[in-house]
């Protein structure tokens, strides 16, 4: 059979050949819930009369959204999750450890797995050739209770990126360009697969950015074949034994193949209020920005902070804007402390907040004022996303974010590199 990556992973999992369109019931390797949907997940388990997870060692509870907890209601909800995890012997990732998708990448995800979480950006694990997909609380509760879930094997759109990205252009710019082309519903019910020489040469953090945003085109997963980079990443995490090579068959069938020349991609930005509302940064230059956020499961990794710090080194955040930096995980934070990335950012005037989802989802700190424009390195810019429906959210790379913070207006990172 000629299988796509999705068909290959799912076929191996269910032990027979399956192809796009089939409904399957499959075992799940990891199922997780976080503090935004975890309480509902546990309530649904109880209502179903399920007392404990089918596999506590595959069940992960992660506190990442409201970190540290801003009020007693959220504290009580987080405590409920903590107690449940301890009582059931499930794995538990405490507040401050990091964003669920970063924690999954660092400690759990490996090629060929099926991972489901109560978060749409569970697709991030696709960068490690894991079939990661987001579901609602009840679906995840069922997976926790039974150790399995049902899936429709998706058709696949291939995104092929070849060549070298120019200086100042990053995987975030490439992904925003893809979404602009696909539109935010272009991959609904489908899988995305990324391939081509540019992807082959990307570091793991850059790949995680691509896979993370697959859902912004409506996709169920955003998969990348496993290779030497995957192997080295897993080895660096002490998980080398979980490596396996998974790639699509040469004659796999794709509903569509979109080809891009990396050398033609420019610094790109999504304007409010949809992720496919794409412009080049040069077109957008000069738009005043009152707040910049560098962080999130899309672009809050150490490499992202280093890119920003290289640009901000010896410079100051513009007095007309604010810069908030939130590392994606404790490890990211620690690395940024050790190599002085954090010092550079703080000296430039950045406010650094604890590892977690931070400003991205609009319920913690950093909520913009009325009529403010906030530029973030995260993945969504829907109305009210960052907490105030009267503000506008712009999405861009860490480099564009850093240059914008210096200038107080949207600016092209190529000017400062």
């Amino acid at each position, binding site marked *: 059979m000629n299988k796509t990556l999705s068909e290959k992973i799912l076929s191996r999992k269910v032990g027979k050949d399956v192809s796009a369109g089939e409904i399957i019931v499959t075992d799940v390797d990891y199922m997780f819930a976080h503090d935004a*949907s975890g309480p509902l997940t546990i309530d649904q388990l109880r209502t*179903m009369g399920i007392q404990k997870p089918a596999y506590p060692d595959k069940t992960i509870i992660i506190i990442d959204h409201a970190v540290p907890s801003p009020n007693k209601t959220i504290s009580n909800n987080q405590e409920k999750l903590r107690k449940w995890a301890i009582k059931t012997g499930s794995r538990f990732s405490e507040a401050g450890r990091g964003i669920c998708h970063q924690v999954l990448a660092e400690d759990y995800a490996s090629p060929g797995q099926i991972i489901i979480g109560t978060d749409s950006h569970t697709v991030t694990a696709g960068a490690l050739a894991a079939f990661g997909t987001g579901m609602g609380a009840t679906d995840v509760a*069922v997976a926790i209770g039974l150790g399995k879930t049902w899936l429709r094997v998706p058709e696949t759109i291939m995104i092929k990126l070849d060549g070298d990205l120019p200086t100042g252009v990053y995987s975030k710019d490439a992904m925003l360009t893809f979404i602009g082309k696909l539109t935010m519903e272009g991959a609904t019910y489908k899988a995305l697969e990324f391939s081509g020489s540019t992807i082959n040469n990307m570091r793991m953090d850059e790949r995680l950015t691509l896979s993370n945003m697959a859902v912004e085109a409506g996709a169920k997963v955003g998969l990348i074949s496993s290779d030497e980079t995957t192997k080295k990443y897993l080895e660096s995490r002490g998980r080398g034994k979980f490596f396996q090579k998974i790639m699509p068959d040469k004659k796999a069938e794709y509903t569509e193949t979109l080809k891009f020349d990396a050398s033609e991609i420019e610094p790109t930005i999504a304007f409010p209020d949809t992720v496919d509302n794409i412009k080049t940064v040069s077109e957008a230059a000069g738009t005043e920005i009152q707040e910049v956020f560098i962080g999130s499961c899309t672009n809050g990794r150490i490499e992202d902070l280093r890119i920003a710090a290289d640009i901000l080194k010896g410079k100051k955040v513009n007095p007309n804007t604010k810069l908030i930096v939130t590392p994606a995980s404790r490890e990211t934070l620690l690395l940024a402390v050790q190599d002085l990335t954090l010092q550079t950012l703080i000296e430039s005037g950045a406010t650094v907040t604890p590892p977690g989802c931070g400003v991205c989802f*609009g319920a913690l700190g950093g909520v913009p004022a009325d009529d403010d424009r906030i530029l973030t390195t995260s993945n969504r810019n829907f109305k*009210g*996303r960052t907490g105030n429906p009267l503000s506008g959210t712009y999405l861009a790379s860490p480099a564009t974010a850093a240059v914008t913070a210096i200038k107080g207006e949207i600016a092209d990172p190529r000017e400062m590199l």
Partner: protein
Amino acid sequence: MNMEGKTWPFISTAWKFGDSISTDHISPGRYFHLRTNLPELTKHTLEDAREEYASNVKSGDFVVAGRNFGMGSSREHAAIMIKMSGAGAVVAKSFARIFYRNAINVGLPAIMCNTDKIADKDQLSIDLELGKLKNETKGFELTFSPIPKEMMKILSEGGLVSYIKKYGDLKL
């Protein structure tokens, strides 16, 4: 599967929304702290799309929208809130994948058809089994593709929780 006090198909009022209604429109992130207080959270249903919806919707009314309804977050609260607000169904040109699954899981019918000719306040009746939507105000009928049979099994039990309580397993 029936609405409280109503038997399908019944006639009710359309609330018309546009394209690309995200889960942030339906269940704004700023009410994160209310996610464990569903009745209170439901008072903010669709607040960033039409602020007047939550306080004026009547039991059985239909949420009618354009393309890609429910895009974005996997928060099941979005589907639960629409259901708890009293809506009998969501009708849209297309749905985001996770929202569609969540809607069925919480027992909220999600119907895909061309909604261009449905206006706000139109009186609609929907026959889930026959796959027919009748616009009583404008006097036309639309057919829609039935909900996939695997999902119809879940919906007809009133949602995934009831389904699992009954069967104890996923037997689609």
